[in-house]
């Protein structure tokens, strides 16, 4: 899957996360900011990376602004942003 347009998912409310994606010129850039970065930054990044790999994303810009989201919320928001930005018509449930 390829990110072909800018897209956004999630909110900046507590326990949520805002994810923005955009196309890039062949590289993958992931930027994570979090209120709990000191304790959970590595974990957040690992979840984002794993989610992108499962979706087959190897290029694009992914900005993650975390407000204390659980892993399940993080996965859902990254997937929603990527699916919106990838203009996907049919879902592969096994990749979610």
């Amino acid at each position, binding site marked *: 899957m390829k990110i072909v347009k800018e897209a956004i998912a999630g909110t900046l409310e507590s326990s949520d996360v805002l994810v923005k994606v955009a196309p890039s010129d062949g590289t993958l850039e992931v930027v994570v900011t979090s209120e709990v970065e000191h304790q959970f930054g590595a974990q957040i990044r690992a979840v984002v990376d794993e989610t992108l790999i499962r979706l087959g994303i190897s290029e694009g810009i992914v900005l993650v602004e975390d407000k204390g989201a659980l892993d399940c919320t993080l996965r*859902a*928001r990254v997937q929603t942003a990527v699916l919106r930005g990838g203009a996907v018509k049919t879902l592969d449930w096994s990749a979610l």
Partner: protein
Amino acid sequence: MTTSTKLRRSMLFLPGSNAAMLSTAFVFKPDSIMFDLEDAVSLREKDSARLLVFHALKLRNYRDMETVVRINPLSTPFGLLDLEAAVRAGVDVVRLPKTDTAEDVHALEREVERIERECGRDVGSTKLMAAIESASGVINAVAIATASPRLIGIALAGFDYVMDMQTERGDGTELFYARCAVLHAARYAKIDAFDVVFSDVNDDEGFLKEVELIKRLGFNGKSLINPRQIEQLHNAFAPTQEEVDYSRRVVAAAELGERQGLGVVSLNGKMIDAPVIQHARVVLQRAQASGVRR
């Protein structure tokens, strides 16, 4: 079909798009948590709410609370995708809104079975409930309630129903026939019956009055939109100390009779038959779940 012994007094509605509520709802301990993908979610957030609920369900931190997902009607572009997400994530019960006929349940059942086979889930493990929200649904309540062995209950949804009946919510008179029809259909089918939400969360007196009415009618429980209503509802459904004491004596007498091989048991000169024993067990179950009424 057999009468359920699972307690379903409180079914808490959660907007499927609200990450914070999905993360913390289990602390309120309703009997059932219902993730709403229908009316509580705006059209532009249907996709994000579906994935949020999908992953929240997979987390499985709802312990012994039953999980329910209210999907969009299958006639919309969202319904089938909602169903895929709910069944694949392992939801306990799918709630179908706007159920007008038995065929609505049959159509849902066909899709659920297909998804169960595709994702490797045991066929038949996804339970269903149908929400009746129109005059047509009320008229067809018996056919709907008996449409599938997967059905664990039917629910009356008040807002759409009163709109269809060209009236509005009031003191309950406007719902009387529908409540009785839905309840009788559920009892005939030996499944549970759930009453409407009480939307004025600041009117405790009105809420408790309505709870008392639906409890006396025989409903198993009520759909709720505010966690604050859970404890009030559970307390109203809790038995009194006298009811608990009597139920203990009934169950003890029944167990003694069983050990002695007696077909009929009596307590204080009164015959105790199966329905009395079953009711006593439900009373003790409610007492165990939420104590004695305060």
